[in-house]
């Protein structure tokens, strides 16, 4: 599958397609199963549901919106009998192609199942259907003085089901953990249509295999989550946000490393580099100081003295590493101002320069804290060597670094350069003891490097997949089964116009 050759030609070629033996959905039958109002199968619908926030594009054969678990069961029984691929989908905000139907089939739009079923304050859990949007859940929890902490930057549209399937995390994960740390249990429809209950409703569980945890990060390849039981935590009474500027990226990286290793307990610890700052200023008019790097840090707690103490320690570490322009605020409005640019950074990056579009490539990785500074430097070195622009930002407090490749997407040579840059970067990540994805998942575009990293456990993963889904109908050809070259795995969402006739 890993065909080597002229990058231009590869980029427009079709994906490898499914192995034979799969059926195609009958739209009439789908309408019978879930109701005519919940099936969309116009070529336009199939096109739209064939994309997400990644660089990939494929076409669904039908889109189905189940409104309850029974509909999901009926649909999977049908899909099993006919052996049709089924691709569960939340809001399609994934950045690695997890929800792209590389092999056609039925896209399962889970947003119809959007009920918050129970908020249990006494037992500290919430039960939700998978299509509930993260921000909505937090809106419902806020009056009770609690919140659901993983909160990725896309929480305004990301669904809980998608977050579980991706093991999403975000700015507060440095203190509160990733989605896996909030999941207690769930109901899952297996590929056969059988409904199983995994995990528990209690904080701890040692009852054998942790199958609920296995579903976390499974990217829709093992089952369809139809209900989730999640923990929550109290909203702290005090939050203090700080920002510090640095003239050298390495100094910011060293600061992160020291803040964590010295035992500070930040609730947010974010790095933003110059490219990201320039883009945020261009897009959002924030007027941030255009320095090499900024650190945003926050401490929270129920006692102000404790928050003051954490902030003072972090400030001191920033200063020791030549941090300057340091400011702090407890005020919610001011905190939001400091943080606003970070929350909208991903789309804002498309505004860095007129001709460069922001693509979701090499978007996510982790390295050990002590390598953070080195990684930041490496990112820019690799970008320069390959004639691209890349950023370094992320929830560095949890070891997570994000980059994006800014490039002229109309040029085939830029895509070839992007492929080289991605490969070089992940080679460094592996050699430094990091891992391919921190929170965006593997999908298609990170699969080649994921497979290199996990080479000795791929067969084990395939055995797990077979145990759950012997017919291989659930989101096939992802993760360990994804093609070896992301650039040719599917059509790209972009067109390389240097080989098509130019538009008039």
């Amino acid at each position, binding site marked *: 599958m890993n065909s080597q050759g002229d990058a231009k030609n590869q980029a427009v070629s079709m994906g490898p397609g499914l192995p034979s033996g799969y059926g195609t959905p009958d739209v009439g039958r789908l309408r019978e199963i879930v109701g005519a109002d919940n099936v969309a199968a116009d070529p336009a619908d199939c*096109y739209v549901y064939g994309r997400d*926030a990644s660089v990939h594009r494929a076409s669904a054969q039908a889109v189905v919106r189940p409104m309850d678990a029974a509909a999901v069961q009926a649909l999977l029984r049908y899909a099993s009998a006919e052996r049709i691929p089924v691709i569960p989908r939340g*809001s399609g905000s994934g950045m690695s192609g997890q929800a792209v139907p590389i092999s056609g089939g039925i896209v399962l739009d889970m947003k119809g199942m959007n009920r918050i079923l129970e908020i249990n304050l006494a037992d500290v859990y919430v039960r939700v259907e998978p299509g509930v949007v993260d921000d909505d859940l937090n809106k419902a929890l806020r009056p009770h003085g609690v919140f659901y902490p993983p909160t990725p930057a896309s929480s305004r549209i990301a669904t809980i089901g998608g977050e579980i399937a991706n093991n999403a995390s975000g700015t507060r994960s440095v203190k509160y953990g990733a989605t896996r740390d909030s999941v207690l249990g769930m109901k899952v429809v297996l590929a056969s249509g059988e409904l199983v209950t995994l995990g528990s409703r209690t904080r701890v569980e040692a009852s054998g295999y942790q199958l609920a945890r296995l579903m976390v990060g499974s990217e829709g390849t093992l089952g369809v989550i139809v209900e989730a039981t999640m923990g929550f935590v109290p909203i702290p009474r005090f939050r203090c946000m700080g920002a510090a500027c640095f003239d050298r990226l390495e100094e910011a990286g060293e600061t992160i490393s020291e803040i964590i290793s010295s035992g500070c307990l930040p609730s947010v610890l974010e790095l933003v580099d110059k490219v990201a700052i320039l883009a945020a200023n261009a*897009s*959002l008019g924030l007027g941030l100081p255009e320095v090499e790097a900024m650190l945003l840090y926050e401490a929270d707690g129920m006692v102000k003295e404790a928050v003051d103490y954490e902030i003072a320690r972090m400030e001191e570490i920033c200063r020791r590493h030549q941090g300057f322009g340091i400011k702090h605020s407890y005020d919610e409005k001011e905190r939001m101002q400091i943080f606003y640019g970070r929350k909208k950074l991903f*789309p804002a990056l498309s505004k860095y320069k007129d*001709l460069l579009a*922001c693509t979701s490539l090499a978007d996510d990785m982790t390295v050990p804290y002590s390598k953070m500074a080195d990684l930041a430097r490496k990112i820019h070195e690799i970008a320069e060597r390959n004639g691209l622009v890349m950023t370094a930002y992320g929830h560095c407090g949890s070891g997570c670094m994000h980059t994006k490749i800014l490039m002229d997407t109309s040029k085939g040579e830029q895509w070839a350069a992007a492929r080289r840059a991605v490969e070089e970067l992940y080679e460094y990540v592996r050699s430094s003891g990091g891992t391919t994805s921190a929170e965006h998942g593997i999908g298609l575009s990170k699969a080649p490097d994921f497979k290199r990293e996990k080479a000795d456990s791929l067969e084990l993963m395939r055995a797990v997949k077979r145990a759950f889904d012997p017919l291989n109908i659930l989101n096939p050809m992802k993760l360990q089964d994804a093609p070896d070259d992301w650039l040719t795995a599917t059509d790209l969402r*972009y067109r390389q116009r240097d080989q098509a006739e130019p538009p008039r």
Partner: protein
Amino acid sequence: MSRPKLERLARHEDRLDHCISCGYCYEHCPIYKETRWETDAPRAKLALCYGLITGALEPSEYIAGKLHECFHCKRCEASCSAGVNLTEIFAAARADLRDLGYSPAGTVSQTDHEVCARCLGCVRLCPHEARSFDPVLGQVVTDPVKCQGCGSCLDLCPRAGIEIRRSFGTDPRSQLEKVGCYLKEKAPLEPRAVVFSCSWSNWPGFQAAVGPPGASQRAHETLVTVCAGRLESRTLLETLKAGAWGLLVTACPPDDCEHGGSARARRRVEALWADLDALGVDRRRIALVEVPKGDAKAFGAAVSAFLEEVRTLGPLFPL
């Protein structure tokens, strides 16, 4: 393959590349929130445009229909930090599709020529110069590229001869249905108030989750209208009659309203106040506030203040 037939749209390909497809526009689109199909979301409509340019999609009635469904509140544009000019791109698509012979109804205002008296009031008053009299046809016609679906003409037509076929819950009948559903909820919290919120002036950013049993009890219901000027007096009176303790209309400040609707809404509410006085009903049960575009704080404050006032008034029809 780019085709000369879609040349207006093709000029926007660079901007389409800049859409990073994050989907953050979902939470702002009143049409997506009504249907909750991704194909109705701004991001998806850009994808359709892209598909048309690249030839991955063939032009069709269905696609043309989608691209003619937009109330031009431009909240997606305001929230897009990639700076994609969505409504401009949709206008280009509409113009190209018109040249290809597509004329779907969408959110474009349609005239019933049987009813139309050719008074040309709508032609004079359309804030977007989308309506004109075609001397050959002898009919009033709408330019689908210029029409923004604000509904001003529906409001102004003395013979009720204009409609927007795809209303996405903003027409009087749908609004009253939603009022009915809300008021029939078991044991809703007090006061039972309804907020009619102009889709330009407010920015609630709510999504579509359904709350847990018990927590679905709401002290008020927010319904998104198109322009406040389109709210009919009858809708407001029926809302009170159905059992709401009070209702609040939010509109843009008159100088900000691109459709002249804010001033009409105020005149209408003032007329209703006179009617309420005559009926011996406290006029504070119908309120109107002007909320600057996108000011969620002002919107929230106005709603809280109104709920407080209505609570002191109590139910209009005590049991």
